[in-house]
């Protein structure tokens, strides 16, 4: 099937509003903190995050459940819901400015039109009572799309390239679709308004390997054809290894390591990144070398208030780790926040 390569200048839907980024936007997250109200008071789910999504790249954000990935993703749309709120920081998106300051109608328009989003468990986020096609039209209307026929055509084309029969899927209700089909519907809905910033939260979790590989390939292809800036969130380092240009590793609400994917995988520096990598069940190599990460990730209430957030599971912890939060140190394109990593990236192997 022939698929047209869309640019926002020749979108079949309708011309973008003046402020729309015409190309892949860059995103700069600065000092971002998000807190959730709990019986124990407001506790930070992410704290002081600095992260740049470079225009036209895929950034993978990886970390265990509870590390704050979904909270970070929601912040990009200024969509953190009560009991949560953005407590500090900014999210600068080219063409939109700081979205943390956007409100009401402005914000609603930015979502969907500029920022495509696939929620975690997209599998279950469709309305069970309406067909996919009906939901597509609702989406189009709520964003003031005038040519709905073109929208449907575009949706069918996207579904087709993801290996689905577009017409059949649009006529279906959620329960008639398999998990993998729903996931692809979610991706279609994120792309169909021709947004140039796309955020995918766990887009392949709970899918089988072949379906996952297909979806990752499509994400990569569409990203390149449309010239997007993409963020993929997952707990599976293998997934980001397949698709991401850059990789950010999160733990306890912090980005503890980031850099070009291949470099980080080849020479991981942060003890947490090393642990994650060593815990992946592999097809080759010595079985006895692989091991689960000991301990478990912190929850809002158990994240240490001072010192390094990872120290309870870290084999390299030192006295300084108890009291001083490790600063993020840059070494070329790589950033890492760990007291055991020396200038130039060497890791002190022995704990003091």
């Amino acid at each position: 099937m022939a698929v047209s390569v869309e640019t926002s200048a020749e979108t079949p839907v309708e011309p973008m509003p003046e402020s729309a980024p015409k190309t892949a936007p860059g995103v700069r997250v600065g000092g971002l903190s998000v807190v959730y109200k709990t019986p124990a008071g407001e506790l930070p789910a992410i704290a002081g995050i600095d992260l740049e999504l470079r225009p036209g790249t895929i950034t993978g954000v990886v970390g265990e459940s509870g590390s704050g990935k979904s909270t970070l993703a929601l912040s990009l749309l200024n969509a953190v819901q009560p009991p949560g709120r953005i407590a500090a920081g900014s999210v600068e998106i080219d063409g939109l400015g700081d979205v943390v300051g956007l409100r009401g109608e402005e914000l609603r328009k930015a979502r969907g039109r500029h920022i495509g989003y696939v929620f975690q468990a997209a599998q279950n986020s469709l309305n069970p009572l309406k067909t996919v096609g009906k939901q597509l039209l609702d989406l189009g209307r709520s964003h003031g799309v005038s040519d709905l026929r073109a929208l449907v055509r575009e949706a069918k084309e996207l579904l087709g390239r993801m290996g689905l029969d577009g017409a059949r899927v649009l006529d279906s209700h959620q329960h008639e679709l398999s998990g993998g089909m729903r996931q692809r519907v979610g991706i279609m809905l994120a792309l169909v308004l021709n947004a140039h910033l796309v955020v995918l939260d766990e887009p392949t979790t709970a899918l089988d390997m072949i379906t996952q590989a297909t979806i990752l390939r499509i994400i990569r292809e569409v990203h390149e054809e449309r010239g997007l800036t993409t963020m993929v969130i997952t707990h599976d380092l293998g997934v980001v290894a397949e698709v991401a240009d850059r990789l950010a590793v999160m733990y306890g609400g912090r980005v503890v390591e980031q850099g070009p994917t291949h470099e980080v995988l080849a020479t991981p520096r942060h003890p947490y990144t090393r642990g994650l990598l060593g815990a992946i069940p592999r097809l080759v190599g010595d079985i006895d070398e692989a091991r689960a990460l000991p301990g478990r990730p912190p929850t809002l209430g158990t994240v240490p208030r001072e010192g390094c957030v990872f120290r309870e599971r870290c084999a390299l912890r030192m006295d300084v780790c108890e009291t001083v939060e490790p600063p993020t140190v840059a070494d070329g394109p790589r950033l890492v926040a760990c007291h055991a990593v020396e200038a130039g990236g060497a890791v002190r192997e022995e704990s003091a």
Partner: protein
Amino acid sequence: MIRGTGIVKTFKQRGSVLAGREVKALRGVDFSIEKGGAVSFIGESGCGKTTLGRIIAGLETYDSGEIVIDGTAMSALKPRARQPYFRRIQLIHQDPYSALNPTRTIHQTLHAPLALRAKQTRRPGSWIDTRAAELLSLVGLDPGYVLPRYPHQLSGGMRQRVVIARALTVDPEMLVADEATSMIDVSLRLGILSLLKDLRERLGVSVLFITHDVATARYIGGDGDMYVIYRGQIVERGKVETIISSPVHPYTQSLLSAIPVLHGLERPGEQRVVPTEALDESKSDDGCLFARRCPFSTDRCTSEIPLLARSGGFAQEHSCFYPERRNVVATPLEAA
């Protein structure tokens, strides 16, 4: 300890659109699992793995075929008389969230089956709590921490360990782990896998490991057998290490090719096999069931049915007219 021959299972679909349509979940499957052995079933979603696992655990009926447990043919027994046989086989399913009653503490969850067990084996009531603590320690949990807690207070990995402990309350001879790690963070999967391996080694329980993730099957035991299942049929069968290192069926090769490559650490296999289209159960096929999606299919594949057999000088059985070793698995790069 359990053997099956020619197991067939067809489901009638319900629901508005698909009503009345038949799904051939199993099309005549043979299997055999030894005492203390390890077997894994692999295949993508919808291939019949769960159905077969549930049949083996006595939780699902089958249309035809025979199951023999410890020498006794189930067809010769009335349903009630089969129960003690199937009680030896315990199922652990994929969702540790729904498997535990949220209104009961872990202590209550373990107490009920252990009380029954105490009665059956004429043990004193005091044995129950001792055994509960013993089982939790066995699965790597701290009884003092876990017993008074409710499921929602535990992580997914801990819950799955509780589910395994509960399965062990009846002293089973075999555990059927159906996607037991797929809803758990990757970082914690190896812990559950090595627990299952450990139970097999220490207690001698057989493990049937069901998954779509071939890599995880490797951790249950390389000496075990691997069954590759596609649309209700076994398409390749042999030792785990044989299937992983030199698969010959294009479907197996597709499964292995789909595993993410850790670029930077690994070089992708040179001959990764990608199915030409997605699985569509609604289409019927003549000949090889994989032909529609197989990059190597020929006219013969759509007119003749390939049967599972050992041929072509390969160590494993397969059902492909054109078996060929392909280099689909990633290889580690030399350490930098």
